[in-house]
């Protein structure tokens, strides 16, 4: 059996990744849903999963100074490139949020007063919801290594997919273009980039498309709320044409989406123009993935 992974990303936050993902969950019948926005996850608000298994994520190590051994020579602070060690209250101390656990201070300390210790950075979950299985996570606020936690969630999702014989994984991706975003798309067969017709939307679209190209994954664009600014929609279409990118679909601005979000319901449960557009985008996406028609 081949498991196919579809990733939905955006570069800019708030363009509608989760709105689209939640509807896809309902349209797909038995797809495994994965929320890769581990910083600020939202998909569970609509899909309301019941957690079956919880895993702890020890992603990063941090430096700890043994104050009994420390002579306050300051060598650790001088070798740290993350400005993570400061002299405060008569003692060199590690600022945990800035420490990357790189080991440099451990090696440099002449009296072996520093060691690396694993820290709990978050949790991840195997769950079931109305639409089937779901893998999701929550990073502890202020932690680093969200990319590492995303990789764990992705691994878990593949395990579930193979053991439960699920053909399609749908990934609600992380915003931005850094490690969390790239960790959301590696290994995907197709990537949907959700954009909006604003100056910021186009600017960020170009940066995420350039990032996806590094991974050589086929991708297409969805323009959300396309009718709020015709001129900017044309700009996106022009960019897509120049870059030879397909616009998979355009979703109109629709007050029903706001209402659906407030009710924590997927938009396709409503009889409205944006729901029709989403259904159409879903059909086209299924063809891209060479899956047999659902329903």
């Amino acid at each position, binding site marked *: 059996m081949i498991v196919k992974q579809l990733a939905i990303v955006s570069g800019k*936050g*708030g363009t509608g990744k989760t709105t689209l993902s939640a509807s896809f969950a309902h349209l797909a019948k038995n797809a495994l849903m994965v929320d890769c926005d581990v910083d600020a996850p939202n998909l569970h608000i609509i899909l309301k999963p019941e957690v079956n298994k919880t895993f702890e994520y020890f992603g990063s190590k941090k430096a700890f100074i043994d104050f009994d051994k420390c002579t306050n020579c300051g060598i650790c602070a001088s070798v740290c490139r993350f400005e993570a060690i400061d002299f405060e209250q008569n003692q060199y101390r590690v600022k945990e949020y800035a420490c990357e656990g*790189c080991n440099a201070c451990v*090696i*440099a300390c002449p009296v072996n007063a520093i060691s690396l210790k694993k820290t709990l950075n978050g949790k991840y979950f195997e769950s079931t919801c109305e639409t089937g299985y779901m893998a999701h996570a929550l990073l502890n606020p202020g932690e680093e290594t969200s990319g590492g936690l995303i990789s764990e969630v992705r691994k878990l999702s593949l395990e579930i997919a193979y053991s439960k014989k699920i053909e399609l994984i749908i990934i609600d991706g992380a915003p931005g273009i850094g490690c969390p975003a790239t960790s959301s798309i590696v290994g995907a067969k197709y990537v949907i980039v959700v954009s909006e017709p604003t100056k910021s939307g186009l600017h960020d679209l170009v940066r995420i498309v350039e990032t996806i190209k590094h991974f050589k994954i086929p991708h297409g664009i969805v323009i959300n709320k396309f009718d709020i600014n015709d001129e900017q929609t044309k700009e996106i279409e022009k960019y897509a044409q120049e870059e030879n990118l397909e616009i998979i679909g355009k979703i109109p601005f629709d007050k029903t989406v706001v209402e659906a979000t407030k009710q924590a319901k997927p938009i396709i449960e409503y009889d409205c123009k944006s729901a029709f557009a989403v259904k159409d985008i879903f059909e086209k996406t299924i063809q891209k993935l060479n899956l047999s028609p659902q329903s």
Partner: protein
Amino acid sequence: MIIAILSGKGGTGKTTVSTNLAYVLDKKGHSVKLIDLDAEEPNAHLFFDIDYSEHIDVDVKIPKVDNAKCTHCGDCAKACQFSAIVVSSKSTLVFAHLCHACGACLLACKYNALEEIPKNIGKISLGSANGIDFVKSQMNIGEPSAVRIIRQAKKYTNKNKINILDCPPGVSCPTVESIQMADFCVLVTEPTPFGLHDLKLAVDLTRQFGLKIGIVINRYDNKLIELESYLEENNIPLLLKIPYDIKIAQSYSKGKLFSKEIPQYENMFVELYNKILEIVQ
């Protein structure tokens, strides 16, 4: 004073609040500095005509192996926490994309066989945004982390000015780096369950660092009871409600400042600043 604008959830209006607040305060005669710290997807520059005066490269140092000196002892690979060095009996390889540029391998090498070469990861641009001091941070496409660029960009805050920091979304390392040193954090949210969920995470984050906070609700149409009761129970001041107005959305989409386009909205940012001032003092 340093005011950080953050949100947890993306797309709630951080840049809208940052740019309009900067514009209005400058117009009212304050000395303002606007710093865009969302180095992955910077947007604040789109709302001004920027006259750039300087671009500063942000480089990190990554190791390079001197094969004449290397004995393939493997100490560098053992020291590296990021699996960025692989040593075999014949070769020592550095994987630049995994390297955190921490220098641990150099400290571990007994044979002085590693030197460092610069690698560019982004840039900081300084300029003037219609008279407002402006700093933009931008990460190169393909880089994994913006934290070091943010750390550099933050150093351009000016004690004698009102510094407005447009922060990245989320609640992990880039955001944490951005809000250090802030005198006040403005948390921008929207009246939806998504907005509230992520707002709570952002509040937890700011509380960890003992920062003073206040809330702006963007696209306010009608009450989200859960949001208002959350703010009340946790004693979090609500500073401003920006109404749900299609004209605001349209002005944003065109890269315009709505407080300039729709003058009746100008005063809300003066009031926002006054409320911040009251809390900080």
